[in-house]
């Protein structure tokens, strides 16, 4: 049992995060396909299908997070996506593709965050945060302060996510220069 405000905040984060992510994937679809190709984990013929499935799953998370009664399902699907991406990154790294662009910069073409273990840890943390929303909330009504908390907490987590990606990109750039 968790407080309704906490579940609401996590779901708001989930909806905003995957809406932004899916929007980038759909508007820069060829760039996303190129990023998946760089992972080197599937035949080129399967890449467009895999890219479409990933983008559709993200849209589904957003829709489910907004539908009353389906929020725990949205949280489970969201956490599965974070963990699924982490597994794909792990496989790509094991296959020697560490350093390929992760495709997770929401269309920021100046920044390229390379695949590496820190991104796997990042996704595990995001999956853990998301799983909080699977728990049953207590019975109370949402008040306006819950909305303020949810929106600002989501903004803070997404900004820190982008800052983390920027840090990893900088560290990779530094390593490339010192090698």
């Amino acid at each position, binding site marked *: 049992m968790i407080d309704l405000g906490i579940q609401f905040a996590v779901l708001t984060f989930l909806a905003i995060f995957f809406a932004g992510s899916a929007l980038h994937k759909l508007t820069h679809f*060829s*760039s996303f*396909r*190129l990023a998946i*190709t*760089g992972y080197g984990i599937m035949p*080129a013929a399967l890449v467009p299908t895999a890219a479409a499935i990933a983008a559709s799953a993200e849209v589904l998370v957003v829709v489910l997070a907004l539908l009353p009664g389906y929020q725990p399902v949205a949280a489970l699907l969201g956490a599965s996506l974070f963990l699924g991406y982490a597994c794909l990154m792990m496989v790509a790294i094991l296959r020697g*593709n560490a*350093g*390929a*662009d992760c495709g997770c910069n929401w269309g920021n*073409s*100046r*920044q*390229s965050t*390379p695949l590496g273990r820190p991104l796997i840890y990042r996704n595990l943390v995001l999956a853990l945060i998301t799983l909080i929303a699977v728990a049953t909330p207590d019975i109370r009504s949402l008040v306006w*302060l819950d909305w*303020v*908390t949810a929106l*600002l*907490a989501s*903004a*803070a987590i997404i*900004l*820190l996510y*982008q*800052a983390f990606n*920027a*840090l990893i*990109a*900088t560290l*990779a*750039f*530094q390593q*490339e*220069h010192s090698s």
Partner: protein
Amino acid sequence: MTTALIISQILSWVIIVALALMVLALMRQVGVLHERIAPAGALSMNQNLKKGDTAPTLAANLLGGGKVSIGGAERNGKSQLLFFLSPDCPVCKTLLPALGSMKKAEAKWLDVILASDGAEPSHRAFIKERGLEHFDYVVSELLGRSFGVSKLPYAVLIDENGKIASLGLINSREHLESLFEAKERDVASIQDYMQSRTAS
């Protein structure tokens, strides 16, 4: 009391968001600074070729159709810049705008050729994605091997007589420009130039 707690709660969140925004801005700024303070001058690390050698001559198929001859003495007074890249190389992507403006600005004396190897469909997607249609784009493993390319992004400047003018590993716009600077100063690389200055 409740009003004070509500105000305090909202204020705390506003400050947390502002701090997260500042962290993001600082991270990006650190990234920009790293790019700027990278060692100036392309690092020449080629075992096969050095400045003054005759560049390997070969004819390669362009991805957009047609052929291009690389190296050779018949250059019509123009130099060639071979830029070796890969669609999944992050640093290569950051250099594409610089190459585009360089191609335009130096068109009178320089032909810029992008070179890579691997499956053609991914290169075609890359060209479309990055708007590289106006570049001569060659996909040839032989070309990379002939020029001894082992790490990307890599560039080779071939002068108007078909000789290697300068070459090296490129990580920034400054590295790219250093190839022209090295050609102008008639040194193998900016590192050589700096060393000769220190020695004298």
